[in-house]
């Protein structure tokens, strides 16, 4: 049944390297343009036109850099885990290329989340780091990204070992999400992805979602570029 759906949509043709190269060559400038547009609008609303916070003042603007980075670090990991599953079960070469291309971007987002979070924490919480469940599990996420890279590139253990690690590390993702609810943490609970209304005012949601969109198209653009390069290197 699933093969019938995939054949109808012709999705599997995307999995053929030549098709991917053609489609991505067309999509890349579009993605870059969207990214640029969203960054321009996002940075303007984040830094200029949106209001300060009732308690944090101008410090709240760090949210527009920190939160989208955190979201992307998890989204990219989910993508890598999905690609890793396809590698292990279907042995698809395109899945390997996409996973390997995505990992450094995910690691970058995770590192950015930790760095901006720490900078934000110092004037608001009074410290730039605590070993609470949220911060520790996100650091673990960075280690899983790094471990993948170490296995694949550093130790030359290949895509199967790295993919296995990616799947093992997937357990960490719901832990990150649940950490602020299941245990007493310094990091506050979720303001957006939660049951009930969002705890962020609409004037602040605009820059937040614009920046999130910008980060997303950054990921898509860089992923496509890296995958194209990886394909060309392998074809030699």
């Amino acid at each position, binding site marked *: 049944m699933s093969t019938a759906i995939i054949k109808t949509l012709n999705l599997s043709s995307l999995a053929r390297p030549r098709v991917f190269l053609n489609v991505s060559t067309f999509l890349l400038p579009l993605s870059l343009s969207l990214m640029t547009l969203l960054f321009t609008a996002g940075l303007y609303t984040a830094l200029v036109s949106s209001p300060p916070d*009732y308690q944090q003042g101008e410090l709240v603007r760090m949210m527009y850099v920190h939160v989208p980075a955190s979201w992307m670090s998890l989204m990219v990991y989910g993508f890598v885990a999905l690609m890793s599953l396809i590698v292990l079960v279907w042995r698809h070469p395109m899945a390997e290329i996409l996973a390997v291309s995505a990992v450094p971007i995910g690691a970058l987002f995770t590192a950015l989340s930790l760095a901006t979070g720490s900078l934000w924490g110092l004037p608001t*919480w009074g410290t730039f780091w605590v070993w609470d469940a949220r911060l520790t599990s996100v650091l673990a996420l960075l280690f899983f990204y790094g471990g993948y890279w170490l296995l694949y590139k550093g130790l030359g253990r290949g895509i199967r070992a790295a993919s296995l690690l990616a*799947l093992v590390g997937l357990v960490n993702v719901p832990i990150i999400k649940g950490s602020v609810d299941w245990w007493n943490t310094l990091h506050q609970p979720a303001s957006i992805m939660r049951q009930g209304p969002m705890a962020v005012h609409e004037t602040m949601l605009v820059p937040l979602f614009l920046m999130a969109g910008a980060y997303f198209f950054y990921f898509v653009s860089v992923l496509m570029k890296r995958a194209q390069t990886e394909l060309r290197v392998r074809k030699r």
Partner: protein
Amino acid sequence: MKLKHRRLLIIIGGFTGLGLSAFFTLRALQDNLIYFYRPSDLASKKISSQERIRVGGQVMPGSLTPFGKGVRFRITDQHTSLWVISSGLLPDLFREGQGIVAEGFLQDPHVFQATSVLVKHDENYRPPDAR
């Protein structure tokens, strides 16, 4: 069964096993995973006055007063409340009604001697004039 289906089954099975062990491990380690105790947790934990711990709660309005070289205030988790004595610096966002996490020693069941105080603010963000 097809090889790829068997691989899929093995992975799903392995992942389920992993998830279960993670669940039970985390459940068993509860006390080590929490960053602070709430005032209500303290009674049942039998904490000695030499044990460095962290307590978190909301600063009760009207309770903040000067005390020696520092201040004292009460924190609550809506069930139990506790005095906190702090002689150090308080973070900028500290105020009555704010959430805090204090690290230090439980002098007696009703008084906590803090060596440091952090602010644990809530998840609400809005402009100054909005509600």
